[in-house]
């Protein structure tokens, strides 16, 4: 731990896990979606459901979806700001099976019609884990850039993605591949050391057999 893990972060209270962590989950979800959602259905599970309102977990999640960071003093007013921006949001409580005690499931939709389902947990000290994307385990921390590609289970897609990364001089830190069944639906999850440029995303979207491309960049808008 460096000294600014001890003194810091500057954050809106009251809880690093239930407030700051929740803001981060919302913010990462917004980045994965690519824009502020027009609609968000949020399920609070475990301790998020039990003590979430008192900790402002609900306001924190909406604040993150609006693009606010953990030290934004507008977090307590996030519901009003969301309404001004015509974001529809609703909360429900349900205990998600086999999930970490502090977990939220966010079903979000962008104006473009793009939709995502993000399940994430707050691990303490403001650190989070994106457990699932559209129901598939990805385990992305959001501390590094990430690229998630949904494609048909055909030969060559992994090579296309990795050679594109090589071409863009992006170093791959971790990579996992999954599929539901042979010849079915497959997912690649890459965590990288550099941000992934728009041009790479646009190129991937045009490749035949690639169904959906989702990206998380660090330290920038979008």
């Amino acid at each position, binding site marked *: 731990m460096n000294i600014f893990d001890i*003194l810091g972060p500057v954050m809106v209270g009251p*809880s690093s896990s239930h407030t*700051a962590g929740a803001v981060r989950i919302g913010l990462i979800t917004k980045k994965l979606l690519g824009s502020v959602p027009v609609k968000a259905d949020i399920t609070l599970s475990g301790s998020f459901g039990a003590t979430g309102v*008192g900790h402002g977990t609900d306001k924190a999640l909406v604040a993150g979806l609006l693009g606010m960071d953990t030290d934004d003093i507008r977090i307590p007013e996030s519901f009003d700001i969301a309404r001004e921006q015509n974001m529809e949001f609703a909360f429900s409580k349900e205990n998600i099976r086999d999930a970490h005690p502090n977990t939220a499931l966010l079903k979000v939709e962008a104006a473009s019609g793009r939709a995502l389902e993000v399940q994430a947990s707050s691990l303490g000290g403001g650190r989070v884990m994106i457990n699932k994307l559209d129901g598939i385990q990805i385990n992305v921390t959001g501390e590094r850039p990430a690229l998630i590609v949904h494609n048909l289970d055909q030969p060559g897609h992994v090579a296309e993605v990795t050679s594109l990364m090589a071409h863009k001089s992006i170093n791959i830190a971790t990579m996992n591949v999954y599929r539901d069944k042979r010849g079915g639906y497959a997912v690649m999850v890459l965590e990288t050391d550099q941000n992934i440029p728009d041009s790479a995303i646009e190129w991937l979207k045009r490749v035949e057999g690639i169904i959906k491309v989702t990206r998380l960049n660090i330290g920038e808008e979008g």
Partner: protein
Amino acid sequence: MAYHSLKEIVDYCERRKVSFFQAVLEDDMEERKVTQQESMASMYTMWDAMLLASTAYDGSLTSASGLTGRQGALMEEYRKKGKTLCGDFISQVVAQALEMGESNACMKRIVAAPTAGSCGVLPAVLIPYYQMHQQEVEDIHKAVIESLYVAAGIGQVIASRAFIAGAAGGCQAEIGAASSMAAGALVYLKGGDNHQICHASAIAMKSLLGLVCDPVAGLVEVPCVKRNVTGAVNALAAADMALAGITSAIPADQVFDAMREVGEKMHVSLKETGEGGLAATPEGIRITKLLIRSH
């Protein structure tokens, strides 16, 4: 490489003929690969955020649960009447600790030091000290920044030898750590030597060993807000004892190890689960049920 014991810091100071503050600063420069200016700029940002959080206190607010609010304002009103038992300075410290704890509960911006729940301890002792000495000490701003390095160095050692999360080690790991850090910072500000800094941090931690984390309804409010007062006042007493030449029989590093052992042996119901201690009293349970129903 981050220090793992206060002894390491003191040895480094003696070997390199530098102050406690410089030892922590140099380590940060090495650890994060930053210049002295960059490191100190980050620390100034933390201090500014503490001052800003203090001025942003709103005595009319209550938290979403309704459990906390207005206490800092009440204490300040009482202090201004000039009839407190504790005297003016300590009463300012008490008010400041309450205010910061309440601001946190009311979703205001604070500096986790080392955690959000214990965010009131360091500013509670440093801000009144800073205000009191603004006229007489030429570079009080710089001195306070340096004392924050001392606090951070102590906190780093506690995090490395034990823990700084209530869920891991109970309240002793949060308020205890904050108090120990604040005691060291105060001795530094008052010109005490490195050994006195270590004794103060040891004495502060010893006095809070075993403190459990038993928040009512799991919220960072009851008893957290008032425990920030305990941590702050305890730090002042520990610092004054060390400055008087009183020593801790058990060295600081061993006190931190004892904190870890106590934290590990502590029952899980007393570690931020909201299931034991004050949270499990009839009134604690009644409040919890009321909050669940109203939301």
